[in-house]
């Protein structure tokens, strides 16, 4: 799967590189160009945030659906920065109100308004999910992720019901598989099982350095070996901290890992990484 960090100036190693990338990708056509290279290499799933600019990417794929008949989006929501800033400026309830649709939708008024009054997260959460999903209308989104900042924040607070609410809404309204990003994979799996989300899809950092693998690399390896879930590996290359072959070799020796998400900007890196994944992961 192809990730989108590189398009929005996210780089875990260098601010300079991140800025250079955000200059290069200020025009959406530059993003499409890279997605095209990945597509030609056989990577037909785009795992993306709900950044405003992704809306433009979606628009392109809607208009050109003939050229990409089998293209899939795996959205990860929410794009947390906008909410975090609003919470600081307007407080929690003020922030929630700001992100609810303000076009007088009956549904929004009933679900949102009364939910805020009754302090029920179901109504508020499902409205926010629908608002985030709007940009993907008409596109294939078979798997929908909750972003790690939100997953881990809820996990930390112990708001376990929120995972259930997210999962149910994703299944019922979008006929899609709910999935979760996290930096605390073993702990999250415990809680997801506790609230009855079976065999969940969990995307977490999995790399030889143990970078962003909270609970420790051994706990991750144990969990992969002994527990029932569908892992997706991210940060496999640790932002370039590990040489590609070594990085993918490590992941390929782990049980259960069938999917890797990676981001790259150059044809060379995309093709090289894809070739390594094909060679090493398929030889498991």
């Amino acid at each position, binding site marked *: 799967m192809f990730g989108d960090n590189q398009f929005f100036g996210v780089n875990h*190693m260098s601010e300079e590189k991140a800025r250079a990338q955000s200059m290069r990708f200020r025009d959406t056509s530059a993003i499409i160009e890279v997605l095209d290279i990945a597509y030609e290499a056989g990577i037909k799933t785009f795992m993306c945030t709900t950044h405003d600019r992704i809306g433009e990417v979606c628009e392109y794929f809607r208009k050109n659906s003939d050229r990409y008949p089998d293209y899939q989006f795996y959205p990860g929501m929410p794009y947390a920065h906008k909410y975090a800033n609003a919470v600081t400026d307007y407080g929690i309830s003020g922030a929630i109100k700001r992100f609810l649709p303000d076009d007088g939708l009956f549904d929004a008024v009933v679900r949102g308004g009364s939910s805020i009054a009754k302090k029920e997260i179901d109504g508020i959460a499902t409205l926010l999910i629908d608002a985030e999903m709007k940009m993907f209308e008409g596109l294939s989104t078979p798997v929908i992720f909750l972003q790690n900042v939100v997953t881990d924040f809820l996990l930390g607070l112990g708001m376990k019901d929120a995972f259930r609410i997210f999962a149910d809404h994703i299944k019922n309204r979008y006929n899609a598989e709910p999935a979760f990003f996290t930096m605390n994979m073993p702990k999250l799996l415990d809680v997801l099982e506790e609230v009855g989300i079976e065999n969940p899809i969990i995307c977490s950092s999995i790399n030889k350095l143990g970078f962003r693998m909270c609970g420790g690399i051994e706990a991750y390896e144990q969990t992969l070996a002994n527990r029932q879930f569908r892992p997706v590996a991210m940060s496999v290359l640790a932002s370039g901290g590990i040489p590609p072959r070594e990085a993918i070799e490590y992941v390929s020796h782990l049980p259960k890992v069938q999917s890797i998400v990676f981001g790259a900007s150059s044809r060379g890196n995309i093709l090289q990484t894809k070739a390594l994944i094909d060679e090493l992961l398929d030889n498991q």
Partner: protein
Amino acid sequence: MIKIAVVGLGKMGLSHQSMINMHPDVELVAVCDSSRFVLDMLEKYTGVKVYTNYSKMLKAEGLDAVIIATPSKLHEPMIREALEHDLHVFCEKPFCLDQEEGARLVDLAEQKQLVNQVGYHYRFVGAFQEVKRLLEQGILGTVSHVKAEAYGPVVLKPTGASWRNTRSEGGGCLYDYAAHPLNLVNWYFGMPDAVGGTVLNKIFSQDSEDEVYASLFLPNGVSGQLSVNWSDESYRRMTTKITITGTQGRIYADRQECQLYLRDSKKIPTDLMAGWNVRYTTELTDSVWFYVRGEEYSAELDYFIQKIKRTDNNNINSFANSLQTDRTINLLIEDNNSIPSNTATNNQQGMSKNWWQRVVS
């Protein structure tokens, strides 16, 4: 188990609550806030005990420690009350708006032998810790200059007043943003002997500055430049940078990496070489027990807990350390006040008036 409560459930308080609740040595006993809405949600969905009255919570709960993340003007009375209850205190930055009160709190915490820590999380960022380590080795020879910068997209248009953009309540770019690079400068070089040319300029805010520029005159002849702007949308998020120049080379560090240029000499340690030496966050960052939004936030809380367990109040980011930063901020305010108003660029009207005066005269 260490019994802890969190007071002030804004962005920082909630994220502290989320992290500390997962700490294996901690029992999160209660939380306190003035917003009934937030409390009701937390009570309903997490089962945590909630209070709207801080004093009542301190009296009732038999706590060991408290995490304070309320608006800055409330830090002083809340810290005092916690110390009087013999509680270890972790307080968000800035420490205390009144330096004399701050000094009294330093004494009180010391006298009671309580762990006292302020949330200057950059001292827990691997790259900035690496800078400290290199400086302590004297790697740069004689240091001549430090440039301390912070930029980010906080205030991007005129907005209504809140405590976050009112200086008298501890808001504004100086307390909110500039405090961080200043705190790093204090860590590396101590208190400035003097400051000069302080610009506290408004861009969008009504009651506080949006950009801060100043010269810092530090001990041992080290000069410093501070450059901070929280109205800069070209940065995706807050970005803090430190550049230090010495006779043997230069260090540049931000959250992601520490770049060291070393001049060739016989004194180069074996793990370094002449020319560029770069270490990235991926290798400089220690693993944490739980991650929400950056290892440094988890690491500072874990450090606080470990210090409590060892009853060791000789800790990093102590009230005394943080009082230095409060005092440095105060020097900047005094310096800015002393600049004649017709030359100070306190607002944009002021700037254009100066420009016209020069044209006319």
